[in-house]
């Protein structure tokens, strides 16, 4: 029979502009499996969506509760924001023994959290991204920077990680100023940062607030060079910041080489915009859940939870985006797979992804890869 997998993302609220893409990514993996004949000899996968709102943990929990108890999902792909993810995990998923793979909850706090083997994520912890960003700055000869971050656990966590790493490498952080999402005006924040000075502005947040910070800072002539973290990366970014984009440098969790190329093919064919934030991670999260079920030989929460690490890591045949059907086949025949997917998935221990980052800059109005870290 059919198998339900929950997709819980902030369809309304501050992340509502990127979540449709993420859901599409996850569902793209599901249709791919279905098109190849499903898993467990013919079971089709259904996606059941729920709204995490990104900020309202009570509503998110009710949504998750509904997915698990009334829609009988066997696993959850989600949630998006670290705060609600933690709430769902602790109060709903763990209570019901349901595994979750979040594509985007990047807060370092998850690293040490014992979820009883139920929680995984396909994006790396911000602790690492902070380090990578600091390295990039140092290599580019930048010695002083002003930091701004979106005012939540993700933004603050990433900013703390970056600042520490950068200062440890001998750099100076002139000021750290948070900004709220979706507010009317960002001149005050930019004013403070400008007064502090610095060779560049480090923007850690989302496209919305981060983009506004960049364009305001550019317009006011406060900074000429911008560095950004993963949340700011997105198709919406370039058109809205205009000239400021030239010389912009940033990082985003990314697959190297074959994985990425294959994913481009897959999403282009499916007609999904895979280059937007966390689409690839969502694809991988969903794929992992399905493959784990196949590996367990049964679509049960416990079975999936026990097998995620097996399918994600070596040994086994490497599987990239678009090869899901083959992976199912291998597993069904008793073989092993090492899922690489769209982002070169590698899960280190429970809940932790050791992804790679793409360092990009903007060339001729488009993102270009500088190198991978």
């Amino acid at each position, binding site marked *: 029979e059919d198998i339900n997998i929950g997709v819980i993302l902030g*369809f309304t609220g501050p992340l509502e502009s990127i979540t449709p893409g993420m859901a599409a990514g996850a569902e793209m993996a599901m249709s791919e499996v279905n098109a190849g004949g499903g898993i467990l000899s013919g079971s089709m996968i259904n996606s059941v969506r729920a709204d995490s709102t990104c900020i309202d*943990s009570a*509503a998110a929990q*009710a949504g998750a*509760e509904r997915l698990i*108890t009334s829609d009988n999902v066997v696993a959850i792909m989600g949630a998006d924001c670290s705060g609600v993810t*933690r709430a769902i995990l602790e109060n709903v998923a763990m209570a019901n023994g349901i595994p979750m793979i979040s594509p985007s909850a990047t807060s370092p706090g998850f690293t040490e959290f014992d979820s009883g083997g139920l929680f995984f994520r396909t994006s790396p912890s911000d602790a690492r991204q902070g380090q990578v960003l600091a390295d990039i700055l140092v290599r580019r000869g930048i010695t002083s920077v002003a930091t701004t971050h979106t005012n939540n656990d993700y933004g603050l966590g990433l900013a703390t990680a970056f600042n520490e790493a950068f200062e440890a490498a001998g750099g100076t952080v002139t000021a750290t100023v948070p900004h709220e999402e979706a507010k009317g005006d960002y001149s005050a924040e930019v004013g403070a940062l400008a007064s502090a000075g610095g060779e560049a502005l480090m923007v850690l947040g989302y496209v919305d607030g981060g983009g506004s910070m960049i364009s305001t800072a550019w317009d006011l002539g406060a900074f000429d060079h911008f560095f950004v973290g993963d949340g700011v990366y997105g198709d919406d970014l370039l058109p809205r910041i205009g000239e400021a984009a030239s010389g912009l440098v940033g990082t985003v969790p990314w697959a190297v080489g074959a994985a990425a190329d294959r994913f481009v093919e897959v999403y282009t064919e499916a007609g999904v915009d895979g280059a937007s934030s966390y689409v690839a991670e969502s694809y991988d999260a969903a794929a992992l859940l399905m493959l784990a079920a196949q590996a367990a030989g049964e679509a049960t929460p416990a079975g999936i939870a026990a097998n995620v690490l097996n399918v994600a890591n070596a040994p086994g045949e490497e599987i990239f985006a678009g090869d899901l059907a083959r992976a199912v086949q291998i597993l069904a025949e008793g073989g092993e797979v090492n899922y690489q997917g769209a982002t070169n998935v590698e899960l280190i221990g429970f809940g932790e992804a050791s992804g790679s980052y793409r360092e990009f800059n903007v060339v001729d109005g488009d993102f270009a890869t500088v190198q991978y870290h």
Partner: protein
Amino acid sequence: MNPTLRAFLLFGLVGLALLFTGFNQSWTLALTILNMSLISAVLALGVNLQWGYAGLFNVGIMGFTAIGGLAVVLISADPVPEAWSAGGLGALMGLALGAATVMAAIAVWNRMQPSLARVLALIATLVVGYVITRSVFAPAREAIMAVNPATEGYLGGASLPVLLSWPVGALFAAGLAWVIGKISLGLRSDYLAIATLGISEIVIAGMKFEGWLSRGVNNVAGLPRAVPRPVELQGSGFVQSLSERSGIDIVEMASIVEKLGYAALFSVVLIMLIVLSELALNSPWGRMMRAIRDNEIAARAMGKDVKARHLMIFVLGSAICGLAGAMMVTLDGQLTPGTYEPLRFTFLMWVMVIVGGSGNNWGAVLGGMVIWFLWVQAEPLGRAVMELLTSGMAEDNALRIHLVTQAAHTRLILMGSALLFMLRFAPRGLIPEK
């Protein structure tokens, strides 16, 4: 229809809706909704106390709820000894200095004759006090927040039983309300509203920024539970035997038992509050409050100390909001300052009170339950509606795809329509004031 009968029917309907959820979706979902409904009902009681009894337009509910939630962390979380040794003393001294500054300022203001000199002296006191306070406080703050920032970075709590945080949360909120009330209760209607809204934004800004206290936007998760976790319950013989006898799977049974536990706790609080408020409302006290609400000038001329009464009501109502806030954080097991949004924590509460029937405790409680139910259930309903609407269209119809992918937003439309619908047919609330 007889109003009592009507009330019974309406509560019956809510019960039915929950039963329906239980049978059709699941019991744990029904209980989850019930639990938040109960908390919402408590909150609605608090708001109703202020608006329904006294006509105080408080739009700062969010702030009181949040500060009540803070109490849970301060009471029940484990202390962080390293943080205490890193900057605990400095932080406490900073707070003491801050308080001393305020007191000195008040003393200056009260002692001196009204004059320009007084204003200057006040400003001078504040500035000097601020500079000194900050010089002590800021380093301590930094030191605390530098202690293992990914998981700690704050002073932690007192490791006391979590239930104790409920009255403490109420107390925190009451204290805040007292200060706010002293400052702004002279304001009328919407002016009071924006003042309270502003102050609640200040509270939230503080909770986000002052990471040393409650980790700020880093959130505190994994707070102690008031009822054992389902995972623990699964091991208990009682739950196992329940599960065997009822034939319900042990995992689900444990969840159900846990949720019933919370429901029981919340119900006790709610019932106690209802009884107390009903007794108060149906007595000369309630009559006096209604008089004040109807016409302040006349009430004052009839010897009622309107200011004092307003302050008292404001403090009491806010304390109830604080209590509810503490209950909510206890239920969630985490404090996330970012969730405190006016829409969800203030306006939705107002909708509950007005839809339920302001001035009527039962109305407020009913409103709390109905609106919360809708808030949660509008989501699957919205999807269902969209699917129904588009069922006639081809699978790859662009409009259909657009509508289905945007289905989450029908939730808002549905919620709004339900609200408008209820207001249309009961403009004075589902259970209006007598």
